[in-house]
């Protein structure tokens, strides 16, 4: 694992590269608590498909060029109202999955990274935003806030928004 002062620059650059890319799968729901994985960009075939019928066929067969794995609090808003958030009912047909599914098939139009906490907002086509709030601050727990999987590395916004990175390997 690499700790580098220029990781913030890397994170900003990689988040910029998300613009124009489509979110084609969201993995969340039953058994996954508040955690969400957004698959973004090109579909990359997996060597071994995932044996889990609770996720879409595409998500079982393909990994993604970029992924945003969210482990902290988040919320989805459109221009008029709050749609859902990390603490909503997460079973099938529940508020959480209905809201998250609105992201599927939409392209990222813009991104906003707020310092120093590195809270992230992604604005999607169809005027929907996902807002990620880095609330993992407890040193003892040492839980991460979110991981950005890029084609070459995994950038982690860790507890207290401390950045870490490691190379990304594909199956």
């Amino acid at each position, binding site marked *: 694992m690499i700790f580098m002062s220029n990781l913030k620059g890397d994170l900003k650059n990689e988040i910029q590269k998300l613009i124009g890319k489509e979110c084609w799968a969201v*993995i969340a*729901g*039953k*058994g*996954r*608590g*508040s*955690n969400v*994985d957004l698959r973004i960009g090109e579909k990359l075939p997996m060597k*071994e498909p*995932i*044996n*889990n*019928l*609770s*996720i879409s066929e595409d*998500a079982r067969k393909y990994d993604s060029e970029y*992924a945003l*794995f969210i*482990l902290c609090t988040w919320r989805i808003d459109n221009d008029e109202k709050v749609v859902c958030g*990390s*603490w909503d*009912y*997460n*079973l099938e047909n529940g508020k959480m999955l209905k809201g998250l599914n609105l992201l599927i098939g939409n392209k990222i139009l813009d991104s906003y990274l707020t310092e120093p906490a590195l809270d992230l907002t992604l604005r999607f086509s169809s005027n929907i935003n996902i807002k990620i709030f880095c609330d993992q601050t407890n040193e003892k*727990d040492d*839980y991460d806030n979110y*991981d950005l*999987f890029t084609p070459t590395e*995994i950038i*982690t916004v860790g507890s207290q928004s401390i950045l870490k990175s*490691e190379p*990304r*390997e594909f*199956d």
Partner: protein
Amino acid sequence: MKKLRCVAPSKEPRRKEGKHGQFRGRDAKRANDSVVNRVVKDIGLNKKERRRLHDMLDGSQDYDEIKRLGQLVKGRN
């Protein structure tokens, strides 16, 4: 003038229990996140493995089953 008094905290647990004795709402998600985080730490999954484990969950697993899945993911790499 009536004197305001502090009300003693209830002895009832703050967490709401669901019909199967499991937590509901935010507490349920926190409990769920906490079990997965415990497995991740106990078997030392890296970022890629952690995400793969997330793909494999479907809500039917308890700690031991999640741990078994985690070990399966770890063995794959």
